[in-house]
């Protein structure tokens, strides 16, 4: 049932940007990737998504090699939101969310698709914006639309069985405090319902409050993994971020 990296390395220009990382994420909880800029968090997440093939090691979903799972099936089992969305065409918000239903085309009824789209829009508090042109939205609103799209993608349990996964790269980077908390509460609720959630987060407070597992990245390596309260001690934070003095989280 787990999503796993097994001794994964990724090389760019002769340098290991992810170096021998082994990590297991289990459904039912939130795993947060934490670390300085360039520590390899995004790259490791891309390997988990299946968008990047590791140069060494294996990425596995329920003990199946992710590379070997057909694209459509994989897309019905996990959804992902990248850091920088590129959409430059004036789609309506509900149309963007509807794109999340692409892997289900021809497999479910239009009513199911509509239910998923509507549910995702409501979950992200976008009902008021549903008919707005995506390009006229603010950065935070766009980010919520893209997360809603990912929710719509895995709204129902996959026909292939197993857990649903959400893989989010800095999902709170453009959100205000209220929406950050709303998102984390939602992710927590989904995790309690059995979804697997993995996200890159920079806000240590959010990790401490909401994550079940913190994966600490440093220099392309996984320095340690554990419960947030154990990982985010003043000394460990100073070490991970190369600070001069211990840093206490309130």
């Amino acid at each position, binding site marked *: 049932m787990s999503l796993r990296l097994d001794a994964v390395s990724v090389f760019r220009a002769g340098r290991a940007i992810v170096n021998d990382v082994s990590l297991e994420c289990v459904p039912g909880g939130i795993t947060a990737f934490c670390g300085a800029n360039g520590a390899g968090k995004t790259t490791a997440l*891309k390997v988990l*998504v*299946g*968008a990047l093939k590791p140069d060494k090691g294996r990425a596995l979903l329920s003990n199946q090699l992710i590379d070997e799972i*057909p*694209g*459509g*099936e*994989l*897309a*019905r089992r*996990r*959804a*992902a939101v*990248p850091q*920088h*969305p*590129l*959409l*430059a*065409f*004036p*789609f*309506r918000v*509900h*149309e*963007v969310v*509807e*794109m*999340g239903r*692409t*892997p289900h*085309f021809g497999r479910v009824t239009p009513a199911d698709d*509509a*239910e998923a*789209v*509507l549910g995702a*829009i409501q979950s992200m508090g976008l*009902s008021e914006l*549903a*008919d707005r042109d995506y390009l006229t939205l603010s950065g935070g609103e766009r980010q919520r639309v893209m997360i809603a799209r990912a929710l719509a*993608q895995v709204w129902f349990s996959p026909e292939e069985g197993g857990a649903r996964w959400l893989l989010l790269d800095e999902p709170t980077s453009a959100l205000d405090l209220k929406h950050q908390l709303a998102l984390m509460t939602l992710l927590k609720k989904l995790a309690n319902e059995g979804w697997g959630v993995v996200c890159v987060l920079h806000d240590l407070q959010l990790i401490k409050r909401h994550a079940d597992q913190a994966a600490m990245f440093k220099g392309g390596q996984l320095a340690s993994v554990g419960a947030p309260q154990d990982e985010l001690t003043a000394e460990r934070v100073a070490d991970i971020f190369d600070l001069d003095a211990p840093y206490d989280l309130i």
Partner: protein
Amino acid sequence: MSDAVALHQGRERRAKLVLISCACAAVALAILGVVIGPLQIAPIDLAKILIHQLGLTSASVSEVKSGVILNLRIPRVVLACAVGASLGVAGAAMQGFFRNPLADPSLIGVSFGGALAAVAVIVLGGAFFGSANALLGPFFLPISAFAGSLSVVLIIYRVSTIDGRVIVATMLLAGVAANALAISGIGYLTFLADDTQLRDLTFWTLGTLGGATWSRVLPAVALMLTAIAGMLTLARPMNCLLLGEGDAVALGVDVERVKRRAALLTALGVGAATAVCGVISFVGLVVPHLVRLMTGPDHRYVLPGSALLGAALVLAADLIARLAVTPAELPLGVVTAALGAPFFFWLLVKDKRREALG
């Protein structure tokens, strides 16, 4: 619940209405294209001739009239429809492929790449390509143009992308370079050409539907229809591609395959169109934009809408080309450029304003 569904249905209904209107416009213009000309033909005569051709009646209109209709006007109108549809869809597909609404086959050199290959075949002809010519027969010219167009698509894509992201300025400038290179090539071949070839070549660079005969039209139309049908199947994955390649992969889209198909099919559509009627510029830019304004950017409507509106626009432009300076005829490319270039300016100004507004 009903809100989002209603929104969705409202847009869908509107888009379908747009498609039907475009189709009606194309049919009306096609009929006009057949009946209007130096020899005026009453629509009722057209109906009689068609019915006679189907073998339903024995009585027919004069031989001359039916000859003009069946061998001159109908092939021309069929060609106009196919060329317009093909360039319209190719423009839409190319804009999706480059994830940018300024991509257009004639702007970024795809049309002239095809024209260069076609002109090379005409001028160098038997001497260079004898065996291929014999093998492919009437398909040789359109397939050569396809090869020329495809080379340009691939070069522009290689030059203007970094990590799957398209640098728009580079794409347009690479198009300028590709156009310049192709035009200089055509210039050199013009220099080599003899007098008869020369007259053909002039028409080539300006674009025309003149001289459409069934034997020239049919092979190219077959290739264009193949390209259009292929591109229409790419609507959903192309929507996902607009989100960015990473997102498209996460949605289960085989991005490389979609891109490969889009490149091949656009080149086929543009190449085949260019092979029979030269460079018809700006159709691929203007048409998808107009359709998007009416239906929104969903490729499920933009692609078929661009086919229908493209056909209507080229039919209309051809009517203008034929009627503006009767009894002579303007090159079609001149008409489409005169309509399309100001439109391009307008787009640039509009984009600049948006940039300025942040």
